[in-house]
């Protein structure tokens, strides 16, 4: 709370000084102060687990009281989870929700245990917003909204961008948080690491995502000792691949190759062997393979020169318009297996309180059934897992699984009651970014209460 006050003071002073025309030097002051303010001596990492396609959040967190379950079951003909399947993942009555009871999806038994151990928390009804928004404001079109709600690519972007922007945005909040703390790293090659494409989330002004193979450090075979038997060939080959270029596309390809060769050489020497982590990598699990190399990278943080890291891992297939129940069962089982293995690896490495894994997704899905699936929604429930997390509870308000609630904009699509900016701000605070810097990273944050999730850590 005191940090909040000082942040407001800083903002006032920033505004005052801007009027005097000396904002530049003051920005440097703010940056210096923020570095002092944060506790940056200990390693920290954020891991964004993106559920690509839009996870059905209503079946992620199911109400289990007699009345609330009946309401849920009535609202979701043919796609409601059967009540008896929820017993093993029951979370019990939840004080923050007026004593209502919930169960996690039956596939999430391992994560449910983390929740009971207070290492996992649920954040209810999060989604992209520009300003706090009510149903009537939405229906009247009287407030600014993120562009192209319910469109996959645009909402993936809105979740990852600094300002809830649609496709084409340039700065993501993960990379931008890392921008603020990059000076605490001796090298920034591995500050933002993706195992799933080139996500907007990791793009900062200075920080760029590094795409890591799930096997760790790669070799360039033709640039080894010889190229088809010619030592000279292998030397010239590497020169050709890495030389700077005038054509912008060619130059980008060369730049990526240069980065790749340097970085992979360092990974080959720094990462602990894959077999050093216990338990062994679960088979046939794309997400576990990603989190496995993330754990190896975290283990190598000293050698890699990173004190602050942001990771992006992804799992596709959540666009369950069809076959929702069997598809989500299988996907969340993969998530549960992968995340619990990751938790074991972090335990082995002694890093549980230095890492926070959180989920994100294109959007939630509508409460309404379309026969055997659900359609694109907006707000959704998400998981936050880590040793520092004040887990075992639900933050925010879980809307009733019923039509016509105060957050239902139609078909049971929920207007978010916690903005992605608030979610990002709390994660960013834990990461070590100062309150003042959060306003720079998240320009829309000022419209929201930044302390809505203050108790999460």
């Amino acid at each position, binding site marked *: 709370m005191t940090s909040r006050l000082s942040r407001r003071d800083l903002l006032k002073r920033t505004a005052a000084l801007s009027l005097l025309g000396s904002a530049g030097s003051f920005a440097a002051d703010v940056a210096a102060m923020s570095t002092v303010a944060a506790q940056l001596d200990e390693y920290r990492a954020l891991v964004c687990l993106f559920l690509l396609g839009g996870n059905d959040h209503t079946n992620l967190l199911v109400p289990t009281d007699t009345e609330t379950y009946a309401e849920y079951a009535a609202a979701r*003909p*043919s796609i409601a989870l059967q009540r008896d399947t929820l017993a093993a993942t029951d979370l019990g009555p939840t004080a923050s929700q007026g004593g209502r009871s919930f169960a996690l999806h039956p596939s999430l038994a391992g994560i449910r245990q983390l929740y009971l151990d207070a290492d996992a928390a649920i954040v209810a009804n999060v989604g992209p917003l520009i300003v706090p928004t009510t149903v009537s404001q939405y229906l009247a079109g009287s407030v600014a909204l993120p562009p192209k*709600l*319910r*469109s*996959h*690519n645009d909402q993936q972007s809105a979740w990852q961008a600094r300002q809830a922007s649609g*496709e*084409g945005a*340039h*700065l993501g909040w993960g990379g931008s948080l890392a921008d603020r703390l990059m000076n605490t790293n001796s090298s920034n090659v591995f500050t933002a690491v993706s195992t799933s*494409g*080139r996500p*907007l989330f990791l*793009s900062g002004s200075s920080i*760029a995502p*590094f*795409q*890591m*193979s799930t*096997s760790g450090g*790669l*070799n360039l*075979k*033709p640039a080894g000792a010889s190229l088809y*038997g010619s030592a*000279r*060939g292998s030397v*010239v*080959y590497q020169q*050709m*691949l890495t*030389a700077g270029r*005038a*054509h*912008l*596309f*060619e*130059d*980008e*390809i*060369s730049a*990526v*190759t240069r*980065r*790749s*060769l340097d970085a*992979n050489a360092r990974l080959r020497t720094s990462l602990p062997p894959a077999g050093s982590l216990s338990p062994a990598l679960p088979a046939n699990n794309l997400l576990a393979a990603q989190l496995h190399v993330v754990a190896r990278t975290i283990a190598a943080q000293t050698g890699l020169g990173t004190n602050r890291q942001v990771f992006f891992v992804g799992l*596709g297939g959540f*666009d369950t*318009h*069809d076959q929702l129940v069997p598809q989500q069962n299988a996907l969340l089982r993969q998530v549960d297996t992968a995340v619990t293995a990751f938790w074991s690896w972090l335990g082995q490495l002694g890093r549980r309180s230095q890492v926070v894994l959180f989920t994100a997704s294109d959007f939630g899905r509508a409460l*309404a*059934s*379309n*026969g055997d699936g659900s*359609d*694109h929604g907006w707000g959704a429930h998400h998981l936050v897992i880590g040793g520092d997390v004040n887990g075992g509870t639900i933050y925010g308000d879980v809307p009733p699984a019923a*039509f016509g609630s105060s957050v239902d904009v139609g*078909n049971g699509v929920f207007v978010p009651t916690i903005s992605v900016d608030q979610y990002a701000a709390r994660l960013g605070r834990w990461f070590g970014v100062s309150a003042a810097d959060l306003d720079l990273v998240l320009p829309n944050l000022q419209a929201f209460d930044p302390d809505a999730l203050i108790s999460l850590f």
Partner: protein
Amino acid sequence: MSGTVDYPNPDAGEAARFLSQATFGPTAAEIDRLRQLGYGAWLDEQFALPASPIHQTVVKTRSRPQEELLNSFWRQAATGQDQVRQRLAFSYSQIFVVSMISSAVNFYPLGVASYLDLLGASAYGTYRALLEGVTRHPMMGLYLSHLGNQKEDAEGYQVPDQNFAREIMQLFSIGLYELNPDGSIRLIAGDPIETYRTEDVVGLSRVFTGFSWAGTDKSKARFTQRLLAHKADEVVRPMEAYPQFHSVLEKHFLGVTIPPGQIDPDADLAVALDTLAAHPNVGPFIGRQLIQRLVTSNPSPAYVSRVSTAFDTGRYASGSWSTGTGARGDLQALAAAVLLDPEARARPDIGDTRTGRVREPVLRLANWMRAFNVRSSSGGFRIGRTDVGLAGLGQSPLYAPSVFNFYRPGYTPQNAAIADAGLVAPELQITDEASVLGYANFLYGAISSGVGISRDLKADYSAEIAIAHDPDLLIGRMNLLLTGNTLSTATLAMIRDAVVAIAMPTRNQTSARQRRVWTAALFTLSSPDYLVQK
């Protein structure tokens, strides 16, 4: 179809450049043929080749259908005569995406083979016919879940699935914002105008109810059936109407209203597709993407505008040569407009820093296959997937991660001068620190040992081996066949350096000649000059 295009018959380099845009890659023989015929007559010849259900014919008769679907794609890309049709089909497969990544679709490789055949067969027809073919294809129905999509229930709890209604507008026809004919976003008072809103998605979703597998009866059991025999006839037949599952509510979308009580799904579908196909966005929206797939990532507004005009008028003329029926959305006219535009045919200036497109990995492998007359040891063209594993190509045709394709038309790499220059480079979305090494490693093995299952496909380098004693002849041939003579002098010098480093003994030259050819091919196919098709 006759007459003479505006361009003289091309030289070898120009012919190779054109073939990089219009086909799966130049061959020495095709370069010669194009130089003899000129662009117009060569295109006429291609346009005259009939469509055939080649992919489903192959997949139907073989075991391992998932693999055979890919084998068939590559066989046709490497050796098919109907190069323009197949290249367009591949391009359309990246706009009207159906992906074998989806488990629902993956079960039916025969269905996906017929979808690829449909895209090929539709490539010289009209956009309206293509859109209907795509909409009614059961693989699209499974992929975007409008197969078996039901009307709302009486209680109002269940609503039609909105998936296809949304994506047909966002991705297959009109896009998100109103466009000018030159592809730029129309602004009113500085703001873009959305083409549709949630209400339009809801209205259109009611149209796409009551369609499922073709069949003699229209029973509920057939309508809701998920699993058929994987080679059942239904998986290649257009979906049919089941009126009892069709929404009878009012259907309001894009300014059109179908009144309540309408029970004929086919009639409603016709209204919806007519409305979409007539929308002024389609020409610039689809046309610009086709330019990006074939020619350049950043066409000028004037280029897009000329292509839109060909789409709208259904005709395209260059000199006294022309093509197209005059029907709106004639895709033959569209393809010709993309390929024969002055901007496509102009050689990039020396020192140009922004023209062209990054060749996607599938095209790179196809280029290699065609340039070096690749042969299948088993006769089965056994390639299978090329996107898995560390030394993989990093892309398999028909395996896009989502309906948003392998990359987005507006993708720009961050923290790069490309973004600062306001350019897009879609294919760079799958160019990253892992894939660049994967590609180089893939090539290294492919060039010397072949590709595919048990290295089934091997190149025939006999023409190159014959000239390998002469570095300049060898490199010149690689430069022509693979890049249309667009390697920079710096790159040429480096390739020469590596080639001459392999000494040519006076006797027993076989190994040295082979290694020189491999080296020249590896360098050329890895060079950033080649990777950016100019």
